[in-house]
């Protein structure tokens, strides 16, 4: 899975905005506010990543347990997919990994 290129990540204060720029216009109605973990995941998705890659990256960056991290990752991926921010492969990757237990 990979993020769509038209989204720009902007750090504003202590939060982040994902700003879609399509055909020389900012689609202001599609701007999303994300938190630091979301921004971290977004950066990871610059390149093709699997859910396992993301989980490993989160666990090496943050002090958190695997289950909570996976839950956060899935929530992020689902919301991002719903908003059309990541490639369609993401959902199939999510479906596959859904069956997997930690």
């Amino acid at each position, binding site marked *: 899975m990979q993020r769509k290129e038209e989204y720009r990540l902007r750090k504003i*204060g202590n939060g982040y905005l994902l700003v879609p720029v399509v055909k020389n216009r*900012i689609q202001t109605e599609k701007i999303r506010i994300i938190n630091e973990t979301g921004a971290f995941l977004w950066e990871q998705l610059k390149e093709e990543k699997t859910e396992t890659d993301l989980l490993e990256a989160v666990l090496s960056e943050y002090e958190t347990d695997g289950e909570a991290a996976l839950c956060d990752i899935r929530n992020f991926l689902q919301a991002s997919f719903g908003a059309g921010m990541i490639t369609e492969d993401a959902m199939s990757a999510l479906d596959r990994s859904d069956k997997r237990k930690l």
Partner: protein
Amino acid sequence: MTEVQELFLNILSAALAGRQAEEVFTGKDFWQLEAGKQGVSWQELQKIAEEQGMTGFFNDYMLAWEREKIPKPLQGELQKQAFSAAIKYYRLANFAAMVLELVKGQKFHACILKGVGLSAYYPKEELRKAGDVDLYLPVSGEFDAFCALLKKSGFEQEKSITDHHISFFYVSDGIRFELEVHKKPINSQENEVFNQRVAEIFAPFHEVGNCCFPEVETILGSVPVLPPEQNACYLLLHMLQHFLSGGMGIRMLCDWVVFWRHTGQETEFSVDRYLSFVKKCKIEGFHFMITGLCISFLGLSLQEVPWMEGNMPKKEAMEAFLKDIFDGGEFGGKDSSRMLITAGPAGYLKEFHRQMHLRFQKAGKVPVLWPFLWTATGIAFLYNNMFLRKTSAKRVLQSTAERGRLLQEIQLFKK
């Protein structure tokens, strides 16, 4: 300058450098003036940021670098304001892109003045407040044609009492956007020689062949701006225009800092050429004052503006000037009685006459009509004071006299 004003400027200085305050102010107890310690409160700091139109920029820095200094209950509100400022900028950037597409579509020759063209020089472009789009169309004949195109494209013209631009507005998705189409960079001033010299500096752009405007990169791609020498001169003249009317604002000083940090270091920028423009307009005093303030209070270094060596204004004069900026807020908006700064009674009359010409641009060319036009201008002045500015003519004259004393004290335009 009060403690809270000093702290505000120090914070801006660090924010403009994109670094943590402690790094910028090494060896000083930067947060000595922290809330509660010496009577400086967050409310006061925020009030100044609002008055100076710098809420987004200020909040962003504080939240990103100094969050623990902000009282917890306020953090969410400050973050919301910063997001809101950014989104407002994105909307305006879209509007600017739409205007530039109209320009390119018909092959007009134009560039953006200040606004999104300046935001690009900030550490985060979306956090410089931008209220409208200013477009400069210098080529003779193109100005009227472009205004006609705007009207055909759904823009509405507004009444404006000025001879350098025409104001339009455009409504999209219920949001109103403002566009000022400039045929001249600044309004005519009372001094004809000055007006002539300003016109000469920008005269080359009347020829299509000279309109190869450089571009700056923004989130929406490249935006044409004035060549750096004229751009610096324009920014200075624009500040002067505001200083001579209601007042300037700290944001304009911040613009000056980022401009010199960015463009001032480019190899193709001829500082000598820019300085010759300043000399030609006889505004060296103003130019040294503005740059001196940026060095003394906003972190601009002498390495970035080496021509300031030996030209720093006196400390007392800088403090008096800064007080005028803080007292007036952004564009003097904090005090509705501020309309003008002039050094003596003759200045009032000249300005009154100039206002008559701006208000009645066609009829003003017929001297026999002047007594009627003066009367109408006087009535408009009284009406606007009473119903729009909610102040009295007496207070306006008092304020003008007070600021006039400042002008004499700091000797900006000493011959």
